[in-house]
């Protein structure tokens, strides 16, 4: 008897995926990498530039100390060796978003090498090797005009804004990650998530994928077990954690049938499409571009001395994995419960909600329950769902204080997500507060008793279970704004 496996399971049963990730992180320094232009987004085009970042003839770069320190701290957090001698190099190629037609980057002498990052996947630790962490400058932004989709193909002209040119960009390159089998897509996602959390904990970048301050290229190859690693493709345009996972999965599914048919995987750049979840071919890398790297003669070498590195090491915060262990204890969660919090991307949200005054149980209930459901429905990350930790803490406070019941609280939350204001404002504006005025409630109870004499009689006889009918009537009369427990107590008190 043959078993027909679903395609993905079939593929990963026969092929061994190897993944690799190249992540770019825009640093949150005040000024750019090699000049004093401020980094602030949203300015008019070409108003955050100077002779240096516009590449005017005669201008010269001077490296930003804060960016160097941030890179070393990232390297240290990723267990890298910090180079004692490191240089910038010029990467030469013509492209209009690059003001000098070379990028100041690092080549064979990066700042940090040979580290690792442990990520937890399904209760197991996967150690992802870090090849290197280096520093470079970002490019400008090109607007393609005249094409159908704002893409380069079909455009009749392009417009360049150099505000982003020269923003410090840290590139973190993993070693190839073999041996993850069917979990490869999940490992990729877990790695980027963990990396993001590490960098955020360092306070050196806001690492927002949706805003491009964290960008990720995913390399994927397949090989038969025991065989040499296959040709890899490099997938770009992966703009969310979810996309990281989907991109790896779709590349695995795309490559397998080609290999099955005896074909060869082309070494190329591929673009991930959020809408279809598939990748399409981009530039072929078979004729490798010769970037003619050479040491940047306008800059002198970096030679971080051990004392400086030690000081930076001391400044490292508790790293997310350690931090999470502590939170788990504080919140009294089992490994499994904590894992679901992590998987939901809710650690910091819950932490901040607790910091804003909510109980850990209350905070967890909202973020993993109602809010997770809504984020899922909307296809967004939890952090983008529209409610903040402060909102959630306030909401839970209203419930704890008896002003809202669970049902009302969900209605209020809906308003928060719709942007109507804070929970208190919405509760007041919509008149959703629990009716706690005993006078009004007593009147409603009396009305209900009067309207249901049979039921009242049963209760008087001690059949307390019958009270449910009267509670229902009172709740209906108060449009749900009464606290059911209070109503019940009132009814029984009235009839005993």
């Amino acid at each position, binding site marked *: 008897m043959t078993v027909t496996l679903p395609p993905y399971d079939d593929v990963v049963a026969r092929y061994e995926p190897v993944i690799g990730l190249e992540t770019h992180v825009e640093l949150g320094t005040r000024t750019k990498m090699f000049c004093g232009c401020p980094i602030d987004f949203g300015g008019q085009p070409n108003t955050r530039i100077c002779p240096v970042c516009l590449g005017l*003839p005669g201008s*010269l770069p001077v490296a930003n100390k804060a960016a160097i320190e941030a890179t070393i701290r990232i390297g240290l957090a990723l267990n890298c060796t910090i180079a004692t001698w490191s240089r910038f190099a010029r990467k*030469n190629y013509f492209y209009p978003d690059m003001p000098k037609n070379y990028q100041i980057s690092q080549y064979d002498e990066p700042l940090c090498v040979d580290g690792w990052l442990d990520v937890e996947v399904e209760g197991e630790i996967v150690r992802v090797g870090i090849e290197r962490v280096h520093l470079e400058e970002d490019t400008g932004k090109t607007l393609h005009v005249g094409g159908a989709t704002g893409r380069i193909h079909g455009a009749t002209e392009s417009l360049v804004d150099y505000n982003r040119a020269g923003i410090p960009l840290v590139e973190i390159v993993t070693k190839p990650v073999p041996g993850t089998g069917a979990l490869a897509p999940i490992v990729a996602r877990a790695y980027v998530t963990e990396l993001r959390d590490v960098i955020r904990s360092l306070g050196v970048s806001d690492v927002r994928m949706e805003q491009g301050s964290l960008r990720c290229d995913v390399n994927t190859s397949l090989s038969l077990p025991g065989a040499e690693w296959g040709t890899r493709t490099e997938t770009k345009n992966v703009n969310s954690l979810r996309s990281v996972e989907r991109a790896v999965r779709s590349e695995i599914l795309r490559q397998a049938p080609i290999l099955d048919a005896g074909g060869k995987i082309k070494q190329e750049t591929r673009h991930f499409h959020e809408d279809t979840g598939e990748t399409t071919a981009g530039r072929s890398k078979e004729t490798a571009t010769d970037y*003619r790297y*050479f040491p940047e003669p306008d800059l002198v070498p970096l030679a971080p001395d051990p004392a400086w590195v030690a000081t930076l090491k001391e400044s490292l915060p508790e790293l997310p994995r350690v931090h999470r262990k502590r939170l788990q204890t504080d919140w009294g969660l089992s490994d499994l419960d904590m894992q679901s919090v992590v998987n939901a991307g809710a650690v910091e949200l819950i932490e901040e909600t607790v910091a804003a005054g909510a109980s850990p149980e209350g905070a967890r209930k909202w973020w993993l329950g109602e809010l997770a459901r809504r984020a899922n429905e909307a296809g967004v990350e939890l952090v983008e769902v529209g409610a903040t930790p402060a909102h959630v803490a306030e909401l839970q406070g209203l419930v704890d204080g008896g002003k809202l019941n669970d049902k009302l609280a969900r209605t209020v939350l809906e308003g928060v997500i719709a942007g109507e204001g804070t929970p208190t404002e919405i509760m007041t504006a919509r008149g959703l507060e629990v009716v706690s005025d005993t006078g009004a409630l007593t009147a409603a109870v009396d009305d209900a008793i009067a309207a249901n004499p049979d039921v009242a009689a049963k209760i008087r006889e001690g059949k307390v279970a019958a009270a449910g009918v009267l509670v229902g009537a009172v709740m209906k009369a108060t449009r749900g704004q009464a606290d059911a427990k209070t109503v019940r107590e009132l009814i029984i008190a009235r009839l005993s």
Partner: protein
Amino acid sequence: MSDLTRMSAAQLAAAIASGEASATEVTNAHLERIAAVDDRVHAFLHVDAEGARAAALDVDERRSAGEPLGPLAGVPVGVKDIVVTRGVPTTAGSKILEGWRPPYDATIVERMRAAGLVMLGKTNLDEFAMGSSTEYSAYGPTYNPWDLGRIPGGSGGGSAAALAAYEAPLTVGTDTGGSIRQPGAVTGTVGAKPTYGGTSRYGLVAFSSSLDTPGPCARTVEDAALLHAVLAGHDPRDSTSIPQPVPDVVGAARQGATGDLTGVRLGLVREFGGEGAEAGVTAAFRDGLDALTKLGAEVVEVSCPNFQYALPAYYLIAPSECSSNLARFDGVRYGLRVGDDGNRALEEVMSLTREAGFGPEVKRRVIIGTYALSSGYYDAYYGQAQKVRTLITRDFTAAFERVDVLVSPTTPFVAFPLGSRTSDPYQMYLADLYTIPVNLYGGPAISVPCGLSEGLPVGFQIMAPTLADDRMYRVAAALESAVGTLTPGELS
């Protein structure tokens, strides 16, 4: 008052400080001289008469108000057109930058403005400072005031010729492989290349970043030292700028002018002694050497075995860096754009722009540099050239353990006739044979006149250890005191 254009910068500054002449008078005299002779010399690409007069007036007003003035306040200066000047056209001698008015000043220009120097305009050069004759300027050659049929040297031929033609008492040059010293030599003027990093490169249109050094050009050693003192000093905008204090070059020049070189050891590089220099050049150089020994200096022969590889190493390093530095000239952000007809794609427009905007020597060097940096050739060419650079540096270091300065002719031949070497680029490169080694090492060097050969000036080069710029000024001033300055005949 004698002819203001014949006076030295030091004399002019003194006259202005004492009220004997106003900065405005001095400036006008030079602007008139330019108007009278520059159609024959073509030392200037742009004359900023308005800006110069305004700057001169400012000095005069500050003087009247009793404000303290710097030692060169009110003295006019010409600036090589590869130095960026705010609002004043800066072309680097190339069509690709025609019409560009920079929105900022080079650090050395800021320093000169702050010191009260009056900028007359921008002087001619080989395109992007690549050349030894100024014939590669996209705006036509400069003519040597000693013989208008001959080249004024390069790349800073305009800066040197402006001095020899009395159009300016001071000019600024840049020296990558000899572009200050070689023009100085063939025009009978003084040209000094400071220690690399001693003068800021911020605002120099980059040719070869690890070699480019701005420096002073003048008719006297003291004037060169005075301008050197204004230009030099640490600049936080240039990562390769040296933080150490500038040596007292003016004091050293004045000390040297007393004519005593007792105990000073001059190193004669054995490897420069062979073939290469014209007989007349060698003879004039020997006369200079004799004059120095009469002042008490001692001559010691030293060996620098790797100097023979300096020219090849230089012609790999400089083109490599230039191929990258010149990539930014693409017709997107500033300068020329050619072929944008609405149909052509950017890549083609860029290529047409660069093709039209660059002259043949620039194209040759860009292509060589692209080749030398290619992954398959990097180790054999650029990488190897950088190792040779280490060896040349070791030769200098070893030599300076035995002698105080090294001396040589500045250039193997006197000013050659226009057009005589342009068809064979490598013959042109040989003009830099003696000037290049010290660029690779980074130390300071100066060219000072030592006599004539067939009626044309010969330059004497003095090279000193890095940061010992004062030492070369002392020896140069001593030589000047013995030989005197050279004066060309009236322009024919």
